[in-house]
């Protein structure tokens, strides 16, 4: 066991006792934030995506000690800003999901994408989402939803 690690999660200072614990397990276990999805635990499916200082990362292969002192944003904070709220609304408008398991990681990824690029092309969105797997085949709707959100944000139809 290594030393304790401190970092910010959704704006709150948090501590995890064992810095070798993967960030995913620390979030879901120690910190009881279970909206971040446990998928493959090998960094391949994107379900566990969180933002670290605004950058999308797969939390399952990120040791907690690697994010010491940094700012983590999880799906629980999606509604804290306009981009996140617009995305969630767009996903519901498009009914972009079936089982819904992959959606949380995709929403977090899309939030980072739209924060950096207000008008991504469909191909750009798809390329960013290639790190995310969806088994039910909701890809088409998910792409539509992100395009819709980008459009609404650029037109100022935000909440």
């Amino acid at each position: 066991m290594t030393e304790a690690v401190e970092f910010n999660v959704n704006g709150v200072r948090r501590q995890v006792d064992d810095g070798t614990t993967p960030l995913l397990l620390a979030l879901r276990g120690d910190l009881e934030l279970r909206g971040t999805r446990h998928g493959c635990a090998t960094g391949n499916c994107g379900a566990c995506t969180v933002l670290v200082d605004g950058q999308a990362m797969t939390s399952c292969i990120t040791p907690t000690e690697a994010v010491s002192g940094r700012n983590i944003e999880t799906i629980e904070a999606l509604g804290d800003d306009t981009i996140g709220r617009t995305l969630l609304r767009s996903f519901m408008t498009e009914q972009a999901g079936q089982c819904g398991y992959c959606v949380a990681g995709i929403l977090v990824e899309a939030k980072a994408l739209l924060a950096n690029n207000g008008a991504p092309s469909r191909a750009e969105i798809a390329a960013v989402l290639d790190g995310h797997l969806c088994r039910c085949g909701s890809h088409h709707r998910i792409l539509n939803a992100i395009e819709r959100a980008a459009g609404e944000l650029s037109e100022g139809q935000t909440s």
Partner: protein
Amino acid sequence: MSTTAASPSLTDNPLCSAWLDFSADGRVTLKTAKVEIGQGILTALVQIAADELDISPDRFDVISGHTRLGPVEAGTSSSLSIEVTGKAVRHAASASRKLLLDEAATLLQAETSTLSIVDGTVYVSGRDSSLTVWTLARTVNLNQPAMEFSSPKNPSARRLIGTSMARIDLQAKAASSAFIQDRVEDGMRHGRVVQPPSGLRRLTAFDADALAAQFPDVTIVRDGSIIGVIAATEALAIRAIEAASQLVTWSEPESPPQDILGALGELDAPPEIVTDTGDVSAASGTKFSLTVTKPYTAHASIAPSCAIATWTGENKLQVISHTQSPHGLADGLGVVFGLDGPRDVTVIHKPGAGTFGHSGQDDAALDAALLAKAVPGVPVRVLWSRADDFQASPMGPAMVVHTEGTLDDNGRISALTIESRSQPHARRPGRGGFAEMTNAALLDPPLPVPVPVDVPPLRGGGADRNATPLYAIENVHVQKRILADWPVRTSALRGLGAYANIYALEALMDDMADAAGQCPVAFRVAHLNDKRAAHVIEQAAEMAGWPGPAVDGEALGIGFSQYKNKSAYSAIVVHVRLDDEVRLLNAYAAVDCGEAINPDGIRNQIEGSIIQAASWTLKEAVNIDGDRIATNGWDNYPILKFSEVPSIKVELVDRPELPPLGVGETAIGPTGAAIGNAVKRVLGLRLAHLPLTRDAIQAAINA
């Protein structure tokens, strides 16, 4: 919805009260054993009940897949939830409405015909009577057979049916902790099991002392060849099980199996005749033949299988599971633990990530129950690893489908034969009084493993599903041969044999159309007496602008089927581009599922099954190494990515006067077939060995 044909679920649970409960004021509880796997079934069932009762869908709560609190129904399979449970719910709602309004009529001294319901409140001749279904339900006996009182609304009187009501569960799943994987029970601990490499191997050595020394805070469980750990945290359970897997030794199998496709090719099991019409041997004309092969395929659910088990009181077991067969799982666990399944085992369904038949959900439940037995009263959660989920879940069977056709001088098919070979397509828990879970056979003492049997034709068939063509052909012979004795476990995966059978059948249709110099669309229509079938084929062709682009390296291809020859009709046209691999540009679907309960939900299912079938067709194959499954992660089981999915257009043929038909599987077979047919039109070669990877295309070109 037809009011005459029986719903097996309603026959087994005839009373209104089995399906609906009005005891909470202002709320209605709808009960079903069918479960949500992402297909939107709970939303559609609420829509049906709400429409029939004239109560807002917002007032509904759903109990789904709870073996103690809901009706006893078959599992969620075969696209039957709308056809069977939808019908039961409609009748139960209609009968409840009648019983409640009859009581209102008595109380109000009014004719029942003058009464209506507005969001649960009874109106007399359009005026609020102040009676509600909830006050009435306190005295009305709803323990009465629904069929005696049911008289469902005319289609024209329905308000919610045919509207795209949003999913009742999706927002919670998108952005909060709604899955079984997220559940925490009081005092819950975390378990994992070292999954045996195959059912042929036994544990020969395990250094428990070394594991205990390294993990003093972990409870170690052993039963026969099953080794497991229970820990306070998930992180600790994972570390302990990874260490344990290095401290076990497995026996070598005496005779590991050979290549499955070779074994199926040489299979001499007696054929089971499925269809035998006319005399195929007497037909004369030009002969065509094709042998299609399909590898093992995986559910490849995004979340690994999970379960939480607790042993309570006097030998009672409670299991929270994302099983698709809650009652079957209770039966199977009863067999394993010597309990009366329905009485002593309670299974409570909570949703997981999408599964498409029988994946590892039930096996994870057994693992959790085995571990929890070591710590009575303590809930033990088991979450498999990604590798466990690929290697310990049952798979979709590999198949060999051989088909022959005869084309007469007038360009009509005079004879068609199909033989489908595979392992069985359903080995669900509890079947026939057996546990039917791999690890049950590795306990001490081991539980018996039954000889697996395929799904019978009356239940839609397994290997033979959709092997019988819907086309009007005078002489048809369809048979299947089942490889029962084979150590790699297979079970139900979306569409069962329909996927490979339709690929083969529709490929032969195109080959014969080409040889006859006919358009594949017209050729199909000319061989159909079923107008609904012909309609979707023509509609999909029109949507796609058939015959499509005169662009080098691009083509359209078509595939069609009526799922199980009795459910929804689907015609799919795909537009592909071939460079060094197959690229899907567009997909067009025309679907006739009778009365469309929720059009957007149906479109979502069709879009999803097009993408999933495209992924199977272009990419997916489980690798087998002797008796072991070598596939262990997304690196070696790639599925279709966001940048690879086609643009999709779906059109529904709404027929509100006809019974609603399930749509979860209808597009699977036609999509694979359409891709195969499009590739042939570009390449001039028939690709018969799935999946159609870059290597497979190169091999076909070089052959």
